[in-house]
């Protein structure tokens, strides 16, 4: 990933911590687990805001569930984001969550990490195989996901290590390196 210094130049305008989901709101991306997790965290710590950025066919279901759980005052929908709005969203975030049920790779956690945002990703995503400085949980394990969010928000050293080392790790993932490794493998066997 090419470093982009502008990415974390945006300031937040609320005092609370922000936890973000960014992606298509479809079954495959697991937005419903994000909502359930939000409820668990908010029960314990009301000083958090959850943001669901994106649009998709699950939107109605998600909105209904948020209303049902009574957390609408802390749970926000941005709709579909593009361009600098995405960077702005990452700039405001304290935690990025990707609870995908299945994800061939998943590039968005890398973008979050570049913006120094600690990420929580599902073990079922391809990207979880290449990352060390990310917390990995099963998509269905809302207890573990809630615990990881709470941990990042409340234990500063955890936030710092994931933020600093995570950015480093994401910046060091380069197509050139992958291609180089692939070339070596080719040369070895072909």
């Amino acid at each position, binding site marked *: 990933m090419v470093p982009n210094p502008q990415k974390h130049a945006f300031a937040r305008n609320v005092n609370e911590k922000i936890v973000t989901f960014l992606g298509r709101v479809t079954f495959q991306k697991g937005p419903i687990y994000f909502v359930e997790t939000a409820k668990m965290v908010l029960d314990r710590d009301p000083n958090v805001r959850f943001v669901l950025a994106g649009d998709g066919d699950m939107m109605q279901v998600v909105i209904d569930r948020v209303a049902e759980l009574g957390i609408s005052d802390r749970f926000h929908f941005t709709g579909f984001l593009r361009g600098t709005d995405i960077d702005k969203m990452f700039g405001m975030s304290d935690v990025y969550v990707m609870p995908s049920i299945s994800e061939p790779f998943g590039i968005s956690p890398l973008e979050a990490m570049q913006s120094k945002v600690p990420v929580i990703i599902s073990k079922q995503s391809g990207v979880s195989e290449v990352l060390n400085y990310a*917390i990995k949980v099963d998509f269905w394990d809302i207890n573990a996901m809630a*615990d990881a969010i709470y*941990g990042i928000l409340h*234990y500063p050293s955890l936030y710092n290590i*994931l933020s600093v080392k995570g950015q480093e790790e994401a910046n060091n993932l380069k197509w050139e390196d992958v291609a180089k490794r692939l070339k070596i493998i080719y040369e070895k066997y072909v």
Partner: protein
Amino acid sequence: MKKICFHFQISQPFRLRTYRFFDINERHDYYDDYQNHYLTQRLAERCYLPANKMMLDLIKKYEKQFKLSFSISGSSINLFKQYCPEVIDSFKELIATGCVEITGNTYTHSIASLNNKTTFLEQVKLQEKLLKETFGVKPKSFCNTEIIYSDEIGEWLSEAGYQVVLTEGARHILGWKNTSFLYCNPYQTDLRLLLRSYRLCDDITLRFQDRSWDQYPLTADKYMQFLHNTMGESDGPLFNFFWDYETMGEHYPAETGIFDFFRSLIDKLVQSGSFQFISPTDVLTMDTPVSTLHAPWPISCSGEEKDTNEWIGNSLQQEAFNQLFKLEDLYKKSKNKEAKLAWLRLQGADHFNFMSNKWLEHRFVKRNFEVYSSPYQAFINYMNVLNDIKIQLSE
């Protein structure tokens, strides 16, 4: 005549259960009873009981010619008492032979010696009390958690009445000196130091099953040859071997022949006539130290560096360590026995080891009984428990 000191360490922790943030101030049961029960039983069946029986047979066979020593952490003793009392009985039987020495240790396999004197000596005192109650022994030698040692720790131990300390033969503190001599602490010259010959120990612990090693397979004959090869004219009279007891039966299952290897090795050492087994306190009457040995910074048995980075190396571990020992005053004032015990147990080296990302990128050390999927999850769980203990101690 070379003197040979066999020492085995046993340090099983009370493992923590998954403790979520919403459990804080709601539940105070921190331990994974199932895992603790299962692992204690498993280790007893695979290692402690058969190994103790083998040692007992060898002691009987060679009467006073075979000796060995153990350090058993307080947590391990309490786990045995709770889940597998026959292990305690078999140790009692070994101690009754007079050929087995139990060294001092910390109560919960604690890394308090890296914090300060009061927290460390509290651990030492509690362990002494437990050893007195359980085995009726009062140790004069000491084997710290992961053989961590420094000049300062040596001074504290000397003050607590100890005369011999077992530690690592770390090259960076030894320089041109070698482990085959007896050394002493530079400030408390009565405190003797036995240094582990870690290359020879690692030949068994790391390489016993290593097929890429040019000496594979390791046999007792070959090992005897290693010993003879390292005995130069300028070498001293000592060979110190400290191992995890779990090397027998758990790290290497019985099928690998590890028990037969040790049995045969001990047979050969006794029968060769050129080695004499000693226990750590025997050096008090036999030898005078040849020199002082400076260890200005703590050393341990960890990796090649022999430092303490495995436990307090990264920022997560340091944060957990600092937050833990901040509670020392609360611990002293509190009357909540359960919370006080939990605070002591949280000092265990294993908890910190789980948070280590020292091997994160190049994981070549496989940990036994891995419980957490990453150092971060280990940290979160630990901090959740610690926060509850903090509330419990302050009430």
